[in-house]
């Protein structure tokens, strides 16, 4: 066994299967990283690669939202706004003020985090789902500001002239380079988030979700933790937004609409509310589904557009919340477990019923 090996220090008798069971998260993480590294060998088409880039953006957003919603139980309906702040601040600093990309990314993350913090301070003094309300309002404020402040943001035409992302002298131009940068950032966010959920902090967040009363009396600083996790998820969203801005070189208000906020909530719900891994699954499947719907719906329904897509997402969300309130992945897993258990107990059933007979 590897425990014995570790003591004796014999690397020759290292057993892979044993190591994997002891480091499930790390093993899964390494497997994912390896798969992502070689995926472009098969996905060679630029359109498909762009979808992978978008799945990366959505994963960053969904992982943060999963920490906030799934783990801590705080609903945000405004994550598109934090995403948008990241994109617009990065775009403004680089296109208008000629900042270089990486300081702009950091500045955007700091400012977006600050915004989330300032929203959270008064909100978390209140009990109940006020965060959902406040973030709902945030969408409206953001859209209004972006559309009317045309001098800064370019209004509904969008903010143009954002330069390419560069790393040192290397300017990123190809789909492939954005694919790697986006997923490197996504994996970093993933690693950090996995570490957080499997720690004292992760337990505190789940405790808050289950019972704020008990969490508080056990010494968990409930409001401070909510505030920190909201800020962290906003920073993730901002990082995604920054990369988004460099990738498209133009940001328009429509990318950060309320509809997108809802789409993100759907991704988290599909992925399973309290699962970092589920968040990737949710981001990938909903992004792909959205792409498919965008292609299919206009053929099915004449004149159908974004509204039809939203209709489908709304329907999915309703169905999942009714039948699998823990999310799609957790719900399916639970059902499979129940079925397996039922099968395992089936042989003993006759015996039990015989005992129960008078």
């Amino acid at each position: 066994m590897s425990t014995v090996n570790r003591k004796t220090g014999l690397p020759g008798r290292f057993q892979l299967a044993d190591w994997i069971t002891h480091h499930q998260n790390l093993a899964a993480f390494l497997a994912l990283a390896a798969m992502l590294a070689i995926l472009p060998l098969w996905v060679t088409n630029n359109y498909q690669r762009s979808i992978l880039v978008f799945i990366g953006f959505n994963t960053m957003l969904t992982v943060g939202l999963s920490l906030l919603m799934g783990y801590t139980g705080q609903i945000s309906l405004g994550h598109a706004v934090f995403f948008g702040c990241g994109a617009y601040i990065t775009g403004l600093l680089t296109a208008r003020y000629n900042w270089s990309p990486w300081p702009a990314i950091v500045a955007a993350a700091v400012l977006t985090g600050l915004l989330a913090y300032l929203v959270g301070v008064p909100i978390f003094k209140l009990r109940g789902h006020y965060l959902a309300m406040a973030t709902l309002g945030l969408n409206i404020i953001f859209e209004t500001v972006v559309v009317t402040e045309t001098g800064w943001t370019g209004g509904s035409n969008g903010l143009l002239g954002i330069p390419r992302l560069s790393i040192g002298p290397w300017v990123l131009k190809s789909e492939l380079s954005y694919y790697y940068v986006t997923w490197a950032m996504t994996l970093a966010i993933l690693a950090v988030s996995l570490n957080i959920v499997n720690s004292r902090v992760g337990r505190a967040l789940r405790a808050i979700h289950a019972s704020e009363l008990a969490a508080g009396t056990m010494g968990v600083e409930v409001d401070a933790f909510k505030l920190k996790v909201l800020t962290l998820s906003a920073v993730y969203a901002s990082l995604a937004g920054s990369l988004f801005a460099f990738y498209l070189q133009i940001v328009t208000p429509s990318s950060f609409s309320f509809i997108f906020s809802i789409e993100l909530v759907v991704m988290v719900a599909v992925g399973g509310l309290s699962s970092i891994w589920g968040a990737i699954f949710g981001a990938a499947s909903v992004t792909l589904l959205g792409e498919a719907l965008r292609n299919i719906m206009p053929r099915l329904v004449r004149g159908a557009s974004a509204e039809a897509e939203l209709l489908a997402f709304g329907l999915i969300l309703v169905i999942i919340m009714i039948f699998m309130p823990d999310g799609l992945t957790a719900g399916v897993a639970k059902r499979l477990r129940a079925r397996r258990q039922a099968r395992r107990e089936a042989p003993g059933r006759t015996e039990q019923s015989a005992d129960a007979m008078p």
Partner: protein
Amino acid sequence: MSVQAAVAPRTAQKSAQVVLEARRIHKVFGGLVAVNNLSFTVYEGEILAIIGPNGAGKTTVFNLLTGVLPLDGGEIIFRGHRLNGLPPHAIARLGMARTFQNVHLFDNMTVLENVMVGRHPRSRYGFLEAALRVPWARREEQEIREHSTACLELVGMADLADELAGNLPFGQQRLVELARALATEPACLLLDEPASGLSHQEVAALDALIRRLRDEQGITILLIEHDMHLVMGIADRVVVINYGEKIAEGTPEEVQADERVIAAYLGEDL
């Protein structure tokens, strides 16, 4: 704890140190006075029972002591600190822990994880250290795990460490909740009807466990309980409240003989 308090708590209590003092605490819900200028003192190493008919305001007293509800009047002094206005987590850090009448476990977590949350006020690492898995955070995590396991062993629940807390029967959930409270290393432990819903054997085990906590760990215990057999056997002193007011205080024998107490409990066997 002092040996003196352990050996002769009923007679030596006055010389023992004051751990907790409620001075004319007051709480009003709408027009209803739930706790009415109530004062009592808790001495180190004693088991103080708070009894009274249903709706007398006992749980409200616990909620005031732990900062779950704000005081409308009076003050609470705990180990030299004034608790007025402090949030629950700050009070927990000062060494006050509690269980709940209707058990508030974190159902979505395992038994061990529940107890590990109890280590929160005695550990420090936060988001950044967790995110980067710095060495001292990992050491602290190890300490959290070991101490929590020890707490589970103390209540006899170590075998079920990996079960989901929500799946356990009620009696075991109570024990997990107790272990979680113990993990905070409380100086003062508030137990809200710990025997309700337990079988006779479970109550007997609980009785022994509470005594052990007091005698071996030196924990001062405040107990709300309806099981009079348990209360009269285990408590050093009893405070009786009715309609939020203290109507009697003393040893179990004194309280049982008190006419106002008998009147309040008319028809019930004390």
